[in-house]
Every structure is written in structure tokens, then in C-alpha cells.
């Protein structure tokens, strides 16, 4: 099963999205990171590194994010990964809330990575 990683500046934001997804698609591999790790807004390199490792699935991983700097931190982590692991991770520019729901539903239906990314590409924002 493809895994889903949600990154935000705010922990509350991704916790809320996790609640929304939980109502509709239970039991999917879902990982969240929000805030700077000390209760403030921002991003936490160590936590993002940790969840990207936890989220690793041979079938693939999709990252959705809100604002640019969270994804930059994820990209720093990805640069440190071995190429075969890095190549399983796709970053989507779909809107975080709606994209998360679409991705979660696709994942719970057992869709492959390429199909899910195709569905998300149609929703892409400029970000």
C-alpha cells in the first residue's frame, strides 16, 4: 500500500486533516509532521526525517504540504537518502486538505502510485 505523508507549518492543521481522513479511509499508512518540534510553527528536520523513514514502502510514498519551507526541509532529507529509496517518494503540489482526502481514498482503494499522482496532478496549485 502507498503511504501518505502530510507536512505543515502547524501541527494542529495536519492533526485536523488526519481526523478528516480517519472518518473516510481507515487503516492507511498515514504520517504527519507539523510545527518546529518545540510547539511553535515551522518545520522540524529530525521529525520529518524520522517519518519519511517510517513511511517508506516499496509501493511508494506521497508527500503533501502547505507552504514552501516545509517541503524544503523534506527535500533536504530526501537528498540524504539512497537513490532507490528517494525514487519511491513523490511530492505533490495538490492543495493539502483536498489533496489529502483524494490521496487517502485512492490509497485505501489500493491504487498504485502513478494513478494517485495522476489524480493529484489535476488538482495542483501554484506553490
Amino acid at each position, binding site marked *: 500500500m502507498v503511504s501518505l505523508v502530510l507536512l505543515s507549518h502547524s501541527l494542529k492543521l495536519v492533526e485536523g486533516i488526519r481526523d478528516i481522513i480517519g472518518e473516510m479511509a481507515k487503516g492507511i499508512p498515514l504520517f504527519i509532521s507539523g510545527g518546529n518540534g518545540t510547539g511553535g510553527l515551522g518545520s522540524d*528536520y529530525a521529525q520529518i526525517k524520522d517519518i519519511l523513514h517510517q513511511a517508506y514502502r516499496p509501493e511508494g510514498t506521497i508527500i503533501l504540504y502547505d507552504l514552501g*519551507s516545509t517541503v524544503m526541509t523534506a*527535500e533536504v532529507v530526501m537528498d540524504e537518502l539512497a537513490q532507490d529509496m528517494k525514487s519511491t517518494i513523490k511530492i505533490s503540489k495538490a492543495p493539502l486538505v483536498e489533496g489529502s482526502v483524494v490521496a487517502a481514498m485512492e490509497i485505501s482503494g489500493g491504487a498504485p502510485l502513478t494513478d494517485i499522482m495522476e489524480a493529484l496532478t489535476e488538482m495542483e496549485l501554484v506553490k
Partner: protein
Amino acid sequence: MNARDTVALFKLIAKEIEDNKTYLTELDTAIGDADHGINLSRGFGAVLPKLEGEFETVGEVFKTTAMTLISTVGGASGPLYGTFFLKMAGALGKAEIDLSDFVGALEIGIEGVKARGKAQKGEKTMLDVLIPVLDSLKNAATTGIPAKDAFDEALQAAKDGCEYTKTIIATKGRASYLGDRSLGHIDPGCMSSQLMVKAAAAFLGGKA
């Protein structure tokens, strides 16, 4: 410049950031998310104890600084300055470097920032200071003037670059959401980059 000098330089940069923490956050309050000074101060505060280690090459000092900033800053400046110093580290694996080594590393560091931020010059980012500084130092390296004078000229280029950001609209980062309301404001990332150049100029001035 050897590893010990590099440690001293980064300590000076940390002091410069700490001294201007409030100012950087004020700039970021105007057009960003009001945390640039706080974040960088936390990052460089964490770098300081790491600089007490033993380093053989200049690059090792850059790498330690980079990894600490990536781990502790928490905002966009973490991955950006982290990538910048990390890419530079890769090009500075020597016990002693000269101005042309530094210029070569700076160019690689700037390429790293462009790739990480998907940004170019003229988008109201730290690149609007870093690229003019590179051009100035490149020019100085070919004329063979002392490093101290080269950095004095580079500091002027950095100041001009910062002033220039007042005249342009941000198209990258949080300030881009403001549209033309970002006009008239200095980019905070430019200012922190300028402060680093200022520290380098002061360091070389003190050494000469």
C-alpha cells in the same frame, strides 16, 4: 584561511545574527512570518557549542554549521542556509583555502540555494545579495587584491543588493503572498546574508 579561522568567522557571524535578531524579525514582520531573527538566532546559538570541536578542514566547519542549522532553525532559512553551507563544505575539503577557493565554493553554494528554493535573482530573496557578492568577489579574485579589500567591496555589493530588494516585488517565499505590498521593504533573508558578509569583512579586517 584555515579551519580555526573558519570557526572564528562563524562565531563572528553568530554574534552578528544575535545582535541583529530583533531587526531581522522586524523586517520579517513587515513581509513575512515574523520569525527570521528568532529562527536564525536559535540556529546559530546551537552552532556555537558545535564549533568547540576539532576540525581538520575548512569544509568540516561549514558542514557542522550546515547540519546544525538544518536541524534547529525550523523555518525556511534552515534548509536554505543549511543547503548553502553544505554545498560550500563539499568544495572546501582543504586545511587552508584562499580567495579563489572560497569564490568557487560560493558559486556552488548559490547553485544549491537556487535549486532548493527554486529561485533566481530578482525574486526578492537572499540570492539578491549572494549573487552580487559572488560577482564582486569573482572580480576581485581576478585582480588579485587582498581578501580583506575584496570583502569590503563585496559588503558594498551586499548592501546595494539589500537596497535593491526594496524596489522589487517578492515572487518566492511567504512575502510573495503580499503581491505589490512587498514593495518598499528589505527582504529579511537578504539582510541576514548581508550581515554574514559584514562579519566576514570585519573578520578579515581584524586579521590584516
